[in-house]
């Protein structure tokens, strides 16, 4: 008995030793910055001009909700995230179902669908910036010169009605493959016996999808949903590269405002508070997504 305990203890110690490097990394690069920035968020601290952070209670948090640019960027982020989340989840699921049912050379299609995710989003944004360019862009060239519909050419990025749509479309293009692969993995994990039973019972494809496949994907909804929420709320590169927040502040998102406050104005205290507000929003929606998916299961 004694031998068994000491064996277990030494195993636990070994386990702890093996996790030590990872633990150190997490402590230094994640926990420590998190605690420090949490402290900064309650401080008046300009990284350049202040000697040290000066505690100011919840002033930064109050200021955030009085900052018209932050409120506008929050609204823009919600608009982006809502459309992005809905479209990428629905479109990702449709693509996954097509790949699941397609019996031909699915590897080719899987590769094609997944390809955009390996292209850095910032690079894709530069490319799409040119495609959407008003006077000499590819899209307007095709519309005007190939289809001979010059009246339909448009300043896709310079008009506030379409700038956000363009940014959403680029982000969806870059990430729908990943969501589709997640859903495909979920689909492939559904027991073939259930699907075969449905087939024997004479269930149509539509009935199989809505009554068997979709209800069995709740775990994938959680993972894909959280990923899409994170991606949607933390959007930065496409609006930064494609529009810089223009026209006006129509495409300015929360991450851009946080970055500017931290690294352009050096207001680390205020930027940290904005960062924590964003984190709380992301956590709330992730929790909501998890609860809704779990309730469906129940």
């Amino acid at each position, binding site marked *: 008995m004694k031998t068994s305990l000491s064996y277990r203890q030494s195993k636990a110690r070994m386990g702890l030793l093996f996790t030590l490097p990872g633990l150190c990394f997490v402590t230094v690069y994640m926990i420590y910055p998190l605690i420090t920035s949490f402290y900064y968020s309650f401080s008046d601290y300009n990284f350049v001009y202040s000697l040290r952070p000066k505690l100011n209670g919840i002033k930064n948090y109050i200021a955030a909700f009085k900052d018209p640019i932050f409120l506008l960027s929050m609204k823009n982020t919600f608009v982006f995230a809502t459309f992005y989340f809905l479209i990428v989840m629905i479109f990702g699921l449709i693509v996954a179902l097509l790949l699941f049912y397609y019996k031909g050379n699915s590897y080719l299609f899987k590769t094609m669908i997944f390809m955009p995710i390996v292209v850095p989003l910032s690079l894709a944004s530069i490319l799409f910036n040119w495609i959407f360019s008003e006077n000499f862009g590819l899209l307007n060239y095709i519309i005007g010169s190939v289809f001979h519909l010059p009246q339909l050419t448009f300043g896709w990025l*310079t008009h506030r009605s379409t700038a956000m749509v363009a940014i959403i479309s680029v982000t969806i293009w870059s990430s729908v493959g990943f969501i589709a692969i997640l859903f495909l993995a979920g689909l492939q994990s559904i027991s073939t016996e259930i699907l075969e039973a449905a087939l024997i019972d004479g269930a149509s494809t539509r009935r199989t999808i809505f009554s068997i496949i979709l209800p069995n994907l709740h775990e994938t909804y959680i993972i894909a949903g959280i990923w899409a929420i994170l991606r949607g709320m933390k959007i930065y590169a496409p609006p930064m590269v494609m529009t810089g927040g223009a026209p006006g502040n129509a495409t300015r998102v929360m991450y851009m405002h946080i970055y500017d406050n931290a690294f352009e104005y050096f207001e680390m205290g205020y930027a940290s508070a904005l960062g924590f507000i964003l984190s709380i929003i992301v956590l709330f929606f992730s929790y909501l997504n998890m609860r809704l998916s779990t309730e469906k299961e129940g």
Partner: protein
Amino acid sequence: MKRRILVLLLIACVGVTLFAAGAKEASVPSADGPQTLRITGLSWHIEKIFVEEAAKAFMQDHPNVNIEISTYAEPSVVSNYAIDWARGRTPVDIAIVSGAQFAAQFVPKDLIYDFDSELNFFTGEFDKSAFAGVGLDNGQITGKQYVLPLINETYAVVVNTQMFKEAGLVDAKGMPLIPNTWEEFYQFAKKLHKTSSGSVVQQGASIQWSSVNFYATILSVLRGALGDIYKADGVTLNFDNPEFREILRVWRQGVVDGVFTKEMYVDNMAGRNSLMAGKLAMLLDAGGRFIEGEQTLGEENVYVIPFPGADTGGSFGFGAGIIIPKASPVADLAVQFIKEQMMSEMVQTGTVNVYGKMPAMLKYYDLAEAPEWGVLKDIANKSGAIPPYADFARFQKEAPPILQNFLDGRLDLERTISELDRLAISLDKSLF
């Protein structure tokens, strides 16, 4: 006991990780032995100011010196050096920055050298009188020279002379006419603008209205219109005047008619790309862009003219310069490198003749080859520097959306002026 050992191990491990994260390779200088000089800049600084060529030449002249060149991604990244510099260490000995607004952040904590009294740079042939005034002004913070100018630029209008000829906008010698008022500028653009089946085939004018550089355009046209950018107090930007109202009115008219493109809102290079592609008649941007236009359209088809008021009131001058951190162990070597190479004829005339960046030192102006330099030199001599606001980045970020909203018709003229005025009043003027 064992738990304590594990906790100690964890602390030690965290300590080692922290140390490793913070450790930097230290350069050990010795006047006689091998020395290392580390230079950083934006990639265009390195390329267009011939830093690599200068480094090679310096290493040939001084075999004991090794020069390492690195680049940083974008202007605001320079801020990150403050962390190291505040701790008395540095990964670079010379940093090339795009103006004093990127150096002001290091001054309150005394992290960079002042070229006046601390480095005693301006002696002999490097006396301040040997430098272009606007360049020196752009490097001053609280009256001291913290940024040594390397190159200067100024805003002007780059024109496609072929298009001007076709539109009959040339004088008897075939030189492009100069618009004297903004209304005239608009009329020129209207004449030069061409569409076919609803598509633009030749854009009348493109004005630097990007989120990144709109501030420079504002400062340029303000100075051109008023001869100064400040109110009577000498520190607050002056937007509430009839001249600026007229500029805004014309700009909006041009946008409504489509003769001024809005492409620059989202792409600060859209104008120069259109110019180089031969699709644009007038580009209000950094005047040195004419070199790029000449490379694709031919020297005879591109010229530079002042925008309305610039020939009398001047424009906005800006540029790139050098800062030296106090944490550098080889500050003297850095100064020697600057004097021997960065201010040499090879660098200073190369940058003007190949890339259109005006030299910092006046004696090299006469060695510039293109005739356009005469026009730009005249404008530059009357130009003003960037206002030394401690929070200038706020102006850079907040002014463009206000003006873009005006140009899009979402703000009326009076509201636009009052919002700009409010912004101007709120800026931190403690560094004047």
